[in-house]
């Protein structure tokens, strides 16, 4: 009976995920999955002969209050770091579940496959934990967002990796619990070392991958404690995270190995910096921007991470409303890796009440640019860089971009001419149809909005 109820929870997760795939059903999907979770928790509380009710109740209350506090207080611009932190908490919980089994029973009395899965869930959970919190630190600005690289880094990491495998095999064969704890400790270090050399703009890939890992850690714990509910939930999340990871790497035309190990965006890979920076650009005033927008029939807005940094999502929607009042068609073109996590820009614009029909993805937006009068680029850079299309020597050559240079006019709102994260100059800025409006996205849009009203 208990197992059937757990199966019910698993079905709720599948139905919930299915419904999360459509904008109209997504909210009920999330609630169905949450009900499935509640069912699984209640069944566990009833079915297990719990003795330590005090400890358990305290843990549930403390965790519930902390989780709810973060969920309610977080700003939408900080969503990537919150999801990173939650991934980390899930990962370490799975590792701790395995650790308790080792503390209680030890390794010597376990079946061989149980020893293997205990070690696996510990390793995956621990890597997910520290990796997620390094990602959190980078996104929150506590750690530098650029790749942190040092000489001999690859050798150190390879040694750690081989050491982990060696100690894990020794622990599994000898059944020494000290070996188990060493494996856990090495895995914690590996999580840190893997994420520190990864730059901020590659975070969509990292968060997706850590999401997948948090699921795999739960599945591995499920094997160790023989729980199908954990295996089902973990496998679903592992698959979901993996699909997003693949979609993100495809959107950057990079392999997962390249994202994880290349230290992309560090000084060593930015060999072409400054080669074009002497060329003149056309500077625009708020009035120029307002006039260009007011006389357009169609405007496409391209948001990037700069929009999130400037918290400009509400201002851009107000500007878009004013343009629509002038019967100008406004759409938003969103590159899959714009921002710091998959769908980051969509959440920000949803917060500002932009209806989702106005948001176009790469495939939907691209054919539109040739018929667009004005493209307004807000804090995006590499995803609109034509050298990804035209220059085989460019480090980002082959990355699918938004071909904004096919529109009649391009306005770039950007704080300075500094190159993007990848350290690559952008020929778009020197194009004769491009107006450069050097300002903070929020302040700049407010000025443009004011100028538009005064026309």
């Amino acid at each position: 009976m208990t197992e059937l109820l757990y199966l019910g929870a698993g079905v709720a997760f599948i139905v919930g995920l299915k419904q999360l795939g459509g904008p109209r059903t997504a909210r009920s999907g999330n609630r169905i999955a949450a009900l499935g979770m509640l069912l699984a928790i209640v069944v566990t509380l009833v079915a297990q002969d719990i003795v330590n009710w005090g400890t358990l109740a305290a843990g549930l209350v403390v965790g519930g209050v902390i989780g709810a506090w973060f969920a309610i207080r977080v700003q939408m611009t900080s969503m990537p770091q919150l999801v990173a932190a939650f991934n980390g908490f899930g990962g370490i919980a799975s590792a701790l579940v395995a650790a308790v089994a080792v503390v209680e029973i030890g390794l010597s009395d376990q079946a061989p496959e149980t020893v293997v899965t205990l070690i696996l869930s510990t390793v995956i959970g621990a890597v997910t934990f520290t990796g997620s919190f390094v990602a959190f630190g980078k996104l929150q600005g506590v750690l530098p967002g650029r790749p942190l690289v040092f000489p001999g880094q690859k050798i150190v990491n390879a040694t750690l990796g081989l050491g982990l495998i060696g100690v894990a095999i020794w622990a599994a064969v000898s059944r020494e619990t000290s070996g188990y704890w060493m494996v856990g400790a090495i895995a914690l270090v590996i999580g840190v070392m893997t994420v520190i050399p990864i730059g901020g703009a590659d975070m969509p890939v990292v968060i997706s991958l850590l999401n997948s890992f948090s699921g795999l850690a739960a599945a591995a714990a499920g094997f160790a404690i023989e729980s199908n509910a954990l295996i089902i939930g973990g496998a679903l999340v592992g698959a979901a995270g993996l699909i997003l990871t693949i979609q993100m790497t495809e959107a950057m035309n990079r392999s997962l190995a390249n994202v994880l190990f290349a230290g992309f965006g560090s000084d060593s890979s930015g060999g072409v910096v400054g080669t074009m920076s002497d060329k003149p650009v056309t500077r625009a005033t708020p009035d120029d921007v307002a006039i260009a927008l007011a006389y357009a029939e169609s405007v496409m807005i391209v948001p990037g991470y700069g929009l999130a940094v400037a918290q400009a999502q509400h201002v851009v929607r107000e500007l878009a409303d004013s343009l629509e009042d002038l019967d100008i068609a406004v759409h938003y073109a969103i590159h899959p890796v714009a921002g710091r996590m998959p769908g980051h820009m969509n959440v920000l614009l949803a917060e500002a009440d932009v209806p989702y029909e106005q948001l176009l993805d790469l495939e939907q937006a691209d054919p539109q640019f040739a018929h667009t009068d004005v493209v307004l680029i807000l804090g995006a850079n590499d995803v609109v860089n034509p050298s990804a299309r035209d220059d085989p020597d460019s480090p980002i050559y082959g990355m699918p971009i938004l071909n904004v240079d096919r529109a009649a006019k391009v306005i770039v709102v950007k704080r300075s001419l500094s190159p993007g994260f990848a350290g690559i100059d952008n020929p778009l800025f020197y194009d004769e149809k491009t107006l450069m409006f050097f300002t903070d996205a929020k302040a700049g849009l407010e000025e443009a909005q004011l100028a538009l009203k005064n026309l």
Partner: protein
Amino acid sequence: MSVLVIGITVFVLAAFVGIEVISKVPPTLHTPLMSGANAISGITIIGAITAAGLGATPLAQILGFLAVVMATINVVGGFLVTDRMLEMFKSRRDRDKSSK
């Protein structure tokens, strides 16, 4: 069939279901999908409850307590924040309705 083989069977089938269900999600919902999936990975909470509820030694109880705290943050925070995000996703029709 051994428990291990049953486990592997369940894992493989669930992974395929996951791939099938998720591969068609539009990019606009990627963030809520990820945070909802993240909350589901908090299913490890049932392992944590068992560990904390049955732990006999003090060390097991402390680790079990921490596991419950972390897993509960993941579950409660994950589902709540996903709901908060999805509340904001509106179609043009919803938006016109609420503003008039």
